[in-house]
């Protein structure tokens, strides 16, 4: 049997915190074989990133490896002196981080950063190192590497930057690459390309990969073997196919069940038939003027630069239904959502709510009918307010309650409806987890008894298991109150699971719309097809 590239034995990583010792990684053991891609999956706080950081020796103080051993090709490396560990990094173990926008030093050209890394580890002169850097960039799929090598990071797009980061990590031919959420900050279509590049480069060099991610879909498409982690411990180890199709442990079973899939065809309810749609969006357009300043126009002759964030978008939302609006970042879906609730004024076009135009200001009673749930539950609740006051604000502002005690009763009732203890109203948002906060945000949205709720990426900041709970809650509330949702999401699987009708946006244009099953099973637009192909989905495991 061949020797593993890396062996981790009973690894324990601890953080001494004010309220006692926090064990981030608790007795983790695994091996990675040469050329193997090992997926490490888990929800936030599972200790998966910390395990990667421990292997490459980059745990931030006060964190420390408390116990256990790490062997690289049989040599123990967790107790090496700092200088030796430092020369090991990049040379034998490479690392790719999550955010390509911040991984590169903005003040140096990518060539300078590549050459610096190559010359640190390999006995090459400046010209040879430059030649090698150009070859690496070409392999990583950067067009015109001979000229692009002298560009600065800000001259590349996010996807291109991540290619540069991968080239940098592979510059000195390391035997192991630790990729920590390498595609999580990228759009679906770019994500697929980056996974391909990472896979190809590592295969051609025989490098092993430890792929750390929260996204089971990415693992399904990339890795051969996987580890499921939870609360610092390994829950289950096995081949990717086995774990996704036949999970054994309770935690894994629940986790897999919570992951939505774009192939999910279970329908849940019939939308009640009504003669007229609740919301009609007509030819909605929004331009942003990003023209350079007066002087630049005068001297450089720069032209006015108007970005059409949303162009001529029209759709109807049936009463009691969920309309899903999907698209990548920059597609204009969030701008659309904000125009629908009146936070942004459209350049032209109308939004009709029960036949009345609301895009340019809402009357008191209309205002009460429309509510919104936001993406980031940490930013959408005022940290200085008590939960009770947060939830009661719409009632107070719209004068729906007459007394303080009436408001309190309503808040208590709302908290129960979103499955929270009414006593929570006396606490502050920071005392709650992300999922609980999103429930509070939902309670606030419900407090004005709206008919129509715009949900802007309501679960994309949440872990999958929490996402499933919040989506369940949203569905229950829809049935209970006959709510109408507009669901904005980049996550196709979530939209498939939740929506009745769906619209696909790309560069400000609605490229395709229709009933959810039709769009997903039989897409017409090229863009929709490309998107559906690119999505890493657990249904795609062999």
């Amino acid at each position, binding site marked *: 049997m061949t020797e593993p590239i890396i062996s981790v034995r009973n690894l324990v990583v601890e*953080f001494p*915190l*004010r*309220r*006692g010792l*926090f064990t*981030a990684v608790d007795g983790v053991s695994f091996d990675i074989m040469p050329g193997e891609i090992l997926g490490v999956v888990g929800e*936030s*706080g599972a200790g998966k990133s*910390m395990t990667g950081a421990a292997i490459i020796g980059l745990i931030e103080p006060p964190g420390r490896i408390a116990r256990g051993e790490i062997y690289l090709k049989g040599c123990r490396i967790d107790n090496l002196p700092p200088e030796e560990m430092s020369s090991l990094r990049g040379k034998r173990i490479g690392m790719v981080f999550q955010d390509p926008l911040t991984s590169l030093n903005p003040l140096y050209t990518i060539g300078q950063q590549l050459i610096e890394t190559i010359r640190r580890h390999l006995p090459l002169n400046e010209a040879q190192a430059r030649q090698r850097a150009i070859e690496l960039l070409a392999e990583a799929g950067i067009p015109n590497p001979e000229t692009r090598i002298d560009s600065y990071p800000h001259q590349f797009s996010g996807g291109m930057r991540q290619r540069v980061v991968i080239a940098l990590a592979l510059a000195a031919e390391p035997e192991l690459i630790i990729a920590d959420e390498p595609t999580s900050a990228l759009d679906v279509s770019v994500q697929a390309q980056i996974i391909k590049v990472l896979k190809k480069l590592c295969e051609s060099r025989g490098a092993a990969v430890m792929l750390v991610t929260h996204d089971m879909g990415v693992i399904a498409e990339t890795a051969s073997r996987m580890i499921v982690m939870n609360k610092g411990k390994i829950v289950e180890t096995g081949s990717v196919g086995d774990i996704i199709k036949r999970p054994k442990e309770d935690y894994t079973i629940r986790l897999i069940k919570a992951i939505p899939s774009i192939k999910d065809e279970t329908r849940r309810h019939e939308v009640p038939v009504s003669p007229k749609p609740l919301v009609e969006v007509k030819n909605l357009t929004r331009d942003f003027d990003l023209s350079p300043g007066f002087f630049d126009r005068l001297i450089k002759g720069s032209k006015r630069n108007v970005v059409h964030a949303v162009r001529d978008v029209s759709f109807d939302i049936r009463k009691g239904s969920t309309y899903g609006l999907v698209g990548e970042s920059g597609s204009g879906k969030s701008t659309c959502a*904000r125009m629908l*609730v*009146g*936070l942004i004024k459209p350049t032209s076009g109308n939004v009709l709510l029960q036949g009345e135009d609301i895009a340019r200001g*809402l009357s*008191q009673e209309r*205002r*009460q009918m*429309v*509510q*919104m749930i*936001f*993406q*980031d539950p940490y*930013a*959408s*609740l*005022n*940290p*200085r307010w008590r939960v009770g006051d*947060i939830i009661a*604000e*719409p009632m107070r*502002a*719209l004068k729906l309650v007459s007394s303080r005690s009436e408001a309190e009763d309503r808040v208590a009732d709302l908290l129960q409806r979103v499955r929270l*203890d009414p*006593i*929570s109203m*006396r*606490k502050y948002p920071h*005392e*709650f*987890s992300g999922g*609980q906060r999103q429930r509070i*945000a939902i309670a*606030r949205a419900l407090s*004005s008894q709206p008919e129509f709720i715009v949900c802007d990426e309501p679960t994309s900041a949440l872990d999958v298991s929490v996402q499933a709970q919040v989506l369940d809650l949203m569905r229950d509330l829809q049935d209970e109150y006959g709510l109408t949702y507009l669901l904005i999401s980049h996550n196709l699987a979530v939209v498939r699971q939740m929506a009745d009708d769906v619209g696909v946006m790309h560069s400000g244009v609605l490229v395709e719309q229709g009933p959810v099953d039709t769009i997903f099973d039989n897409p017409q637009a090229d863009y929709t097809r490309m998107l559906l192909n690119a999505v890493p989905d657990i249904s795609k495991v062999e």
Partner: protein
Amino acid sequence: MSSTNNSTAAQKPRTRFQRIWDSDVFFSFRRSPVTIVAALVTFILILAALLAPWIAPYDPFNPASLNLMDGFTPPNSESMMGNYFVLGSDHQGRDVLSTILYGSRISLFVGFLATLFAMAMGISLGLLAGYRGGTTDAIIMRIADIQLSFPAILIALLIFGIARGIIPPSKQEGMAVWVLIVAIGLANWAQFARTVRGATMVERQKDYVSAAKLIGVHPLRILVRHVLPNVMAPVLVIATIGLALAIIEEATLSFLGVGVPPTQPSLGTLIRIGQQFLFSGEWWILFFPAITLVLLALAVNLLGDWLRDALNPRLR
């Protein structure tokens, strides 16, 4: 890495006192002996200044009780007239300890009011600039930038000079303290404005503001009820350091002879007086007011420094 206190959501809500005592800010206070000492020194100095008329051994500003024969008595000794002076007496026979007590009263009074003035002005303009953006922001911030590039002392001197030109000489003495407060306040508002504006620009992008806008909450109410509480943390830090700065500025102006009149001396004036006698050996007339001033400024600065670290845990 997850937080370890997710379980707290299940516990009973805590009282205000428990929350403060248990908060990270207070925890770091309890753990820093330097900060505790600084807080204690600040507290004692403020208390002593407040109680000056009751605890000062002499009334240094009552001409009837002054006797030139008491002049230049060294510390811890009796004058020819048989009066005892702990910290010695000055050239007019005034008790140095008493002048210090009364002097810090004026220094602190000017410092506090000037800081409050700068704070009120800076917060309102900063909120306005940050929330409105556009031209309003550009104008306010441009003025702040220009002013920030001039030393506060120069601005204060200028305002002082203008006031001297406008106020009739007969009223100048009585108005001096108020002119000083306005001058120092106007010299320091820009720091507050800049910080508040920066924080406001971050906060107004957050969705809790969107949520309030959505239901038609008035912009002014959003600013005061939502945004303001969230930008107060850095303001508190600047206010503390600003207080130390204002006290030093007041002392500097008085030292330069353009501050409070000698009949109502602040710590700076006392140092100005003491400087004349430094070379002839009567060191205590300068030394004790100077030490008090430095101690006060240092203690307040230490508090500000601690507050900055405590409120911004990333910097540790």
